[in-house]
């Protein structure tokens, strides 16, 4: 190796954009975590004020205190062979968002982007007029520098009104998530005899299931229950 190459390597070792990125993401994660804790602390003040008034209600719910699922809402549509159990999640039990720096997400708007839908058609609300497509890559291990393992695909349908549908899918793996929670006490839904679990958290629905050889992980924001069912029926048919 020449002196020039040695100096170049020393500069790259010191001014390393990968390190810069990792430190930025680390700061972002810590900031997000802090914001969430502040929000939770803010809301935790409310029960102190209301404890006398709703003491009885709190007692009734005490047995369920360790469960993530608050309640389950049943929906049956015999015509379309749909039985849905919407499992509502306790906002205090959802894990912190984890922005995983071990994943590299690449924008890919190639016309050959593989679609998981049977006939290539899916029922998306018309006002979701933006479509972005991504590919997730993983590293073999934490020491590896290259993100060369194909993880999953993702299509995000969205608009400027903060409505979105994220469809992640992969034939090989369960798609990567940036959140976690306990599924204890959740109930299963069926659509055209395919079993799936549907969860609701504030204005977000999410579900995962296997169909047509694909592992799906779908998350919607500010989408109605009807729009969610139409979407799932168009995929599982």
């Amino acid at each position, binding site marked *: 190796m*020449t*002196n*020039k190459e*040695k*100096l*170049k*390597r*020393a*500069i*790259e*070792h*010191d*001014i390393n*954009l990968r390190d*810069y*990125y990792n*430190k*930025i993401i680390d*700061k*972002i994660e810590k*900031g*997000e975590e802090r914001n969430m804790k502040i929000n939770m602390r803010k809301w935790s003040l409310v029960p102190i004020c209301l404890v006398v008034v709703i003491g009885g209600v709190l007692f009734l719910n005490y047995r369920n205190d360790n469960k993530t699922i608050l309640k389950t809402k049943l929906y049956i549509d015999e015509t379309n062979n749909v039985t849905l159990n919407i499992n509502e999640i306790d906002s205090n039990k959802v894990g912190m*968002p984890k*922005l995983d720096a071990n994943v*590299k*997400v690449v*924008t890919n708007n190639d016309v050959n982007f593989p679609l998981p839908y049977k006939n290539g058609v899916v029922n998306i609300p018309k006002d979701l007029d933006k479509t*972005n497509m*991504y590919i997730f890559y993983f590293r073999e291990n934490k020491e590896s520098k290259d993100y060369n393992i194909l993880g999953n695909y993702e299509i*995000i349908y*969205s608009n*400027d009104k903060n409505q*979105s549908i*994220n469809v992640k899918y992969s034939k090989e793996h369960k798609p990567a998530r*940036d*959140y976690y929670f306990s599924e204890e006490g959740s109930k299963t839904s069926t659509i055209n005899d395919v079993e799936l679990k549907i969860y609701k*958290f504030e204005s*977000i629905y999410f579900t995962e299931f296997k169909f047509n050889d694909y592992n799906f992980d779908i*998350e919607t*924001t500010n989408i109605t229950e009807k729009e969610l069912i139409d979407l799932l029926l168009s995929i599982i048919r």
Partner: protein
Amino acid sequence: MASQLNLYKFNEIYDNTHFDLLKYVIIECHNINDTQDIIQDTYLELWNILNKKELSDINIKSYLIGIANNKIKKHYTLLQKIKTISLFETNDKDIELIDTLEDDVNINDLIIKEDNWNTIWKYIKDKKNQDIPKVFYLYYKLELSIKEISKEINSSESYIKHLIYRTLKELQDNFGNGGKYNDK
């Protein structure tokens, strides 16, 4: 969950802008050791903006450079600027070196026993005249020509050449045979 979409946007912007932003910050900052802090503050501000509003129909590179420019201004107090801005290290030995230097000094011809280029780069980075590490970064890392560097840092080509050749000579003297750093 809600931040995932913004993280994709952020990653996309980072991928498309980090090389140009780094180059800009290195050229404009007063001390190359502050680069990481300024880059970090710039992208963290971008993250906060992404969480508040949609950034569409703007030239994101120019937008980021605008943020970086403000960060650089805020980073240095007037006193720091006065302390750190200096065109040349004004000691007689340096001036003498410039006069006696050959114009064809090549880094690959240096015989440096101390084969620790991380230490050598740190030595260059800590020079009082911060044009030196900037020029070395642009010349040896980005492989820009002397002409391109002179445009980037708004100085004459002969000034750039002198900085390079004088520093190479200094490296030879300090890290080569009998050099003070080599003997340690």
